[in-house]
Structure formats: C-alpha cells, structure tokens
C-alpha cells in the first residue's frame, strides 16, 4: 500500500474539523505518486480519444520494405514484422485498453452491484441463491474462469467483454451485499420504511448513495486489472482477434522475434505496466482519502 501523509501522522494530531470534500481533495493531491497516476490515466484517455490525429502512421497498413526496423526518428519504437509502426500500434492499443477497462468494469459493476443489492436487501433465499452462485464463480482462479468463458462463447470483442465481466462481477456482488447488510440497519432506512417508501425507493434513494463510496476504490483498481486480464487473454490468442492492435497480442507477436527486435514485446508490456500501475496508485489514494476512520481529521 502506498504510504499516506494521512496515516503517517499519529491519530488525533490535528483535531480541527475540515469539510469532507476538502479533506478528500487534500489527501488525494498531497502525494505525488497519486498525482502521477492521475496524470497517466488522463494521458491514456486523451491518447485513446485522439489516436487517429496523433499517431504518425496507419496501424494496419502492411509495409514490408520497412519491416523490422530498429528505433529511429521516423519510427520511434521501430517497426514490426509487417512494417507497421510500433508506436502507432501502441497508441491504437490504448483505445482497446480504455474500452476494455470501462466496458468491463461498468458491466461487472452494474450487474454485480444490482445482484448484491437484491441479496443484501431482501436476504433469505434470494441472498442464498445469489451469494452461493457468486461463491461458485469465485472458487475458480479468475483468469481461468474468464478464459474458459471466452473460449466457450467463441471469438469476438463483445464475448471477451462478457467473459471478463463475469470474472470481475463476484467481488462487486459481495462488497455490495456486505455494505447493504450493515447499512440497512440504520435508523434512516427504518424511518423510510415506516413512512411507506417502496422497496425500489429505499434501495436506490437511500441505500445506493450511502454504500457506493467504498465500492469506488474497487472500481478504480479493477479498471487496471481488467486491462491486465484482457492483455493476458490476447496474449494467449483467446482475446480480441487480430489484426486489431491490442497490447497483449503485440507481446505475443513480438516473442517470435526476440533476437532481432526485442522491443516488439518489451514496449507493449511497459505500456501495460504503466497503465495498471497508474490505476493502482489512484485506487490506493482513493482508499486513503475515503477512509472513514480518518473522517473529520487532517
């Protein structure tokens, strides 16, 4: 875990009350590692959006005379076996990475949280069925579960999204169920109940806003891990089909040319590390900033 200035001070050192949002911003921006992570994420999103304008070449155009070039001013990271510019393919790969991250986490988060909400709110057999199913999914190593689902569903980007989302979903369901179970005991929920609010209103008006913050940390971390998981599947040849430029597939393609041009594999790996690390740093920062034990202090 990243060390925070918040946790480093002995508890109770400064008792002056500071508003929640000011404290949040202060904790988030007080550490350069978290800021570094945020900068990387913003850059990633900008690069993904403006890929066609900033990339020097066409990511798919085969240009055999220019193949396997070493880095130069024309090709900053060199070219691959088909003469495609590596930098351009990295830039286009960021589009897939961003897409995978956001689609998978949105899908996993939405379905997982909804099921967790239902399980936690209604309890009883609803909870038993939903939570046992999640236990079953969690009893397998996530990557292997995702791999198997992707294989069974067949090729295609949307199938990969579904497979990854199923792998990431159980955590959200569990977290949500746990949060709802403890939050629904609060007096304001009982008050809403007494006032005759419908189940739907209680769930979405009163419960969801209160249980969401802790889940947000998980969302940020998973954005990175979804990208890592997709890269692993693409690397194995089970993810998104070639010739689409994905970082995982680029590493896979490059490993046959390690002796002549190791950069083909090394550069996309670095891109993955940088992005996953950025989401991790920001996720850790969020965790500290949202930590209720530090509320009102620092």
């Amino acid at each position: 875990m990243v060390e925070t200035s918040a946790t480093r001070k002995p508890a109770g050192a400064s008792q002056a009350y500071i508003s929640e949002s000011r404290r949040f911003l202060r904790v988030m921006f007080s550490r350069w590692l978290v800021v570094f992570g945020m900068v990387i994420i913003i850059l990633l999103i900008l690069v993904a959006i403006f890929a066609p304008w900033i990339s020097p070449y066409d990511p798919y155009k085969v240009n055999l005379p220019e193949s396997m070039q070493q880095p130069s001013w024309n090709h900053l990271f060199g070219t691959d076996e088909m003469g495609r510019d590596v930098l351009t393919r990295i830039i286009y790969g960021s589009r897939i990475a961003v897409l995978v991250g956001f689609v998978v986490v949105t899908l996993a988060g939405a379905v997982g949280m909804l099921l967790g909400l239902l399980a936690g709110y209604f309890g009883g057999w609803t909870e038993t069925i939903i939570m046992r199913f999640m236990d079953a999914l969690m009893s397998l190593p996530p990557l292997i579960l995702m791999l198997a689902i992707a294989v069974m569903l067949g090729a295609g980007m949307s199938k990969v999204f579904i497979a990854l989302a199923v792998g990431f979903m159980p955590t959200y369901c569990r977290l949500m169920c746990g949060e709802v179970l403890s939050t629904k005991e609060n007096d304001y929920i009982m008050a809403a109940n007494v006032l005759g609010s419908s189940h739907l209103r209680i769930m979405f008006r009163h419960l969801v806003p209160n249980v969401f913050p802790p889940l947000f940390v998980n969302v940020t971390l998973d954005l990175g891990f979804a990208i890592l998981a997709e890269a692993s599947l693409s690397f194995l040849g089970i993810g998104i089909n070639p010739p689409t430029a994905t970082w995982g597939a680029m590493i896979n393609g490059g490993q046959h040319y390690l002796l002549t041009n190791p950069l083909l594999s090394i550069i996309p790996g670095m891109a993955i590390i940088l992005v996953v690390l950025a989401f991790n740093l920001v996720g850790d920062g969020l965790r500290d900033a949202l930590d209720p034990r530090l509320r009102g202090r620092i």
Partner: protein
Amino acid sequence: MIFLVTIISFLLLQIVPGDPVIQILGAKATPAQQEILRHELGLDKPVIMQYLNWIGGIAHGDFGKSIIYHEDVGRLLRDRFPITAYLSILALIISTSLGIFAGVISAVKRGSLIDSFISLFANTAVAIPTFWLGIVGIYVFGLKLGWLPIEGWTSPFTDFVKSIRQMIMPLFAMTIPNIAVIVRQTRSSMLETIRQDYVRTAKSKGLRQRIVLYKHALRNALIPVVTLVGMALAFLLAGEVLVETVFNIPGIGRLLIRAALDKDYLIVQAGVLVIGTAVCLANLLVDIAYGWIDPRIRYK
C-alpha cells in the same frame, strides 16, 4: 465448494452458443454423424441427467474422450498434473516465505529506505503481466546472457541440475507478482497489529523487541495473510497457465490453452474442474492451518 466447482465447469459447456455438436464437428458433418456424437456426449438427454452422467463418469475417473486429440481426457490430465502441481507448490512456498519476510521487514522498518524500496517494488510488481516478465527473462538471461535455457521441462528425477535451470525463469515470472500481493497484505496487517494494546503491554513488560515482534505481533498478523495463501494458489495457477505457454512446459496450463485454441471443449471443461478442485482443497488446508496458528479458532 467442490460441488459448486463441478456446477460451474458443467455450465461452461452449456454456454457454447448454438449446437456444440456442430461446433465440434464443423458444418460439413452429416446429420447421422451429428446424431452419433450427440448421443455419445449424452446431449440428447435432459440437462439434469447430463450433469449426473458427467459427474458420475468423473467420479470413476472417466473424463470422456478428447474429440480433437482422440485421447482419453483423464489420461491427458493425469500425465500433466504432476508437472503443474510441482511447479505451483514450489512457487507457493517461495512466494509466501519471501513475501511474508519482506512484508515484515517493511512494516518493522517503516518509513526507512528499505520500506520505501519494498513498497515501490510491491506496487509495481502487481502491475507486471506474468507472461511479459517471462519473455523479458527469456531475452535477457536466455538469449543475451545465455545463462539459462529458454524453454522446456525436465523431471527433477532424470536430470536434477537441468530441471532446476529450466525452472528458474518460470518460477521467477510466476512468483514476482504473487510476492507483491503477499508483501502488501503482510505489511498492512503487521502495521495494524503493532498498534494493538497487547503489543504495547509486551513492550512495557520489558520484553526484547525481537520477542515482541516475532512472538507476539507476527503470529497475530499472519492470520489475514494465511487467508491470502489460498487465494495466492489460485493466482499462481492462473500465472502458471501463462508461464507454461511462454516456456513450453507440458503441464495442465498449456494443455488447457492448446485445447482452447483447438476448441476442444471437453478438455477445457475438465481442466477447469481440476484446477478449481485443487484451489478448493488448498482452501480447506488453509482453514485447517488457521487452527494451528490461532488457537482461538480451533474447531471442536
């Protein structure tokens, strides 16, 4: 839990879009051929019966016959299982011991240079793709320096030295991200424990720092870490699939990937079942280990 794993593995075959028989045989097969295979796979029976037949077969060690490789799936798995088990258990031992060691050091020397270094490593290492680490290893130590063989597998019983040399890089690639996860957990758990009252009491009794840390604090701090060991095995097995592919090691992982690429659904299904069962058994062992570490939760 193992029951749940069988359900999930069974359901996997059910989500194959369209008719799995046509998927397996291809569109050119005659209806008669399709009918024979359908009957052979038991797909003409109701789902519950299919499940019972399938699980009954597995209980007898019959995983069915691979359609692509024309071999007994059970035998394919049995041949490869020891290799995967050997590698993952070694990796588990290495990563847990190194991870706990580094995590404790980092927590005890909190704020020092070594702590910053370990924390930086832990943060970066979880972000590194296992397969990439393997490939970089092959390039640096295999191709450039020529110190280690770049692929393959030898049983430690036939040629011990060669076997070790071949295993160094796969183990390295598998354990690094795993060590990072364990370091992070150990460190935060140890920091939490050091703050407890009984640690302060032990200190104020005048016990030596070493005894306080390793006898009083560490034992308690390890409880959440032990939970993680079960998960670590799951994580390692996933990494193993990638590493076996990169280093061409004939284990269950590589079999699974090859079957996946060839669309041999039965092998994928059986592979998932075997890996899932292994993880469940590991978690069972973890539960037993709890009682040993923490007498408060000893089962009656």
